[in-house]
């Protein structure tokens, strides 16, 4: 299968690989997927004043499209408010990376990772978790 140039670029030069201190109350961590399914994403956000995401990091076990989806997600998250981040839709990722139908689940996983990281941050800071749509992939 041929990958799009953008997937290859993110794959070869992944942005924001790394780890934030998961115990910090300013950091939200999302860990989604399962090793048995062939992809696991860990996405972390650091939230500053006015609910603005100041930093984002990821590590991903998965195919090139999964790595590219999470790399792109971290790029998009930085500078966004939590509310703006919640509005990121998996189809935006599909479009930006030109993912083929068989790889759409990678973008769904990235969206799940964003929401799960935000919820982790919210719960840590005494807020209610936002109900997530149960994704099917």
């Amino acid at each position: 299968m041929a990958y799009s140039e953008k997937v290859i670029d993110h794959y070869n030069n992944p942005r924001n690989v790394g780890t934030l201190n998961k115990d910090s109350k300013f950091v939200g961590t999302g860990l989604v997927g399962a090793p048995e399914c062939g992809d696991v994403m860990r996405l972390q956000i650091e939230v500053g004043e006015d609910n603005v995401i100041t930093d984002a990091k990821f590590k991903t076990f998965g195919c090139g499209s999964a790595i590219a989806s999470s790399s792109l997600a971290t790029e998009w998250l930085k500078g966004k408010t939590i509310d703006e981040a919640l509005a990121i839709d998996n189809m935006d990722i599909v479009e930006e990376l030109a993912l083929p139908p068989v790889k759409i689940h990678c973008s769904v996983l990235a969206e799940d990772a964003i929401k799960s990281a935000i919820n982790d941050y919210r719960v840590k800071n005494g807020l209610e978790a936002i109900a997530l749509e149960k994704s099917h992939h």
Partner: protein
Amino acid sequence: MKQPIYLDNNATTPLDPRVLEAMLPYFTEKFGNAASRNHAFGWVAEEGVDYAREQVAKLIGCTEKEIIFTSGATEADNLAIKGVFEMYKDKGNHIITAVTEHKAVLDTCKHLEKNGARVTYLGVKEDGLIDLAELEAAMTPETILVSIMYGNNEIGVIQPVKEIAAIAHKHGALFMTDATQAVGKIPVDVNADGIDLMAFSAHKMYGPKGVGALYVRRKNPRVKVTAQMDGGGHERGMRSGTLNVPGIVGLGKACELCRLEMESESIRLAALRDKLESSLSEMEESYVNGNTQHRLPHVANISFKYVEGEGLMMAMSDLAVSSGSACTSASLEPSYVLKSLGLSDDLAHSSIRYGLGRFTTEAEIDQAIEVTKKAVNHLRELSPLWEMFKEGIDLSKIEWAEH
């Protein structure tokens, strides 16, 4: 060095230039139909086919009359299994095969199940070999056929063919083997091994695509199969259709080259394979899949834990290899062969198959080692699972969101 390096010789092999040379005249001046009995064009084509039949027969130790040319191993598997089922249905309806067989065998068996066959799918031990006691226990008076592959396409393990044949014969059943990966790579002798039917293909042994053969035993016992294609009654009535003369000539030449060069080639390839495997096994958390004693000389299947196979192949774009990862197929299911060894899904997802061949050089293997190590290390840096493993977290204790 040519890039990418081709290490997928279990999928297909390049045509040996000597094979091409033998084939070429049969496309142009020797274009006749081998079934044309009344003129020189037909005779010349038939002569080419007859000579090829001898070359093929010599490689596997049978007579020329026992070779049925087909379009490949898939057709030969279909003809053997469906043909035996139809021919021997008065004797019984039970077929025994194994879960690690190629789809050409498994799906043929599934098809027959809809037509009244009862099929037993034997499991395999964690080294990929079937349990002979289990086979013996599965035999019934209705068993007409045991179909077990010679060498496995994904992990290269060689089944105890002689012992399997003996058990089948003891219970009055025929023994068929899909030997696509074995013929031409290791010595295969249908009489010494007790094989009644055997499918194989030219393009796995440096011959052309689109041609293969089914060996059908003629003596002790005389085996018959019902034709699956109706027509002009070619190939002793078992396989109608104008003979693919250039392809058959190519298969013959490929068999001859394998017979003459197999011994030195298998020693050379096993040494290269061992070098590849031992270097890559030095890496932490890498595992060789399948039995390492009874296997083909040119295959290595290795799982690199905590990295995903398709992602890994992308990082190794200088290498043409294959992976048991789900992501390489549309099904999202990892390799059924690796899973049947008892490998967990995550290890199956992390597997890479290296298939060496006649034209693989030591310099290529050295580069493959380097490229693989670099890619695995790179992806482990990206892998949350690797980080957790390094922190001593037991991944099996985590509640993963299955998706």
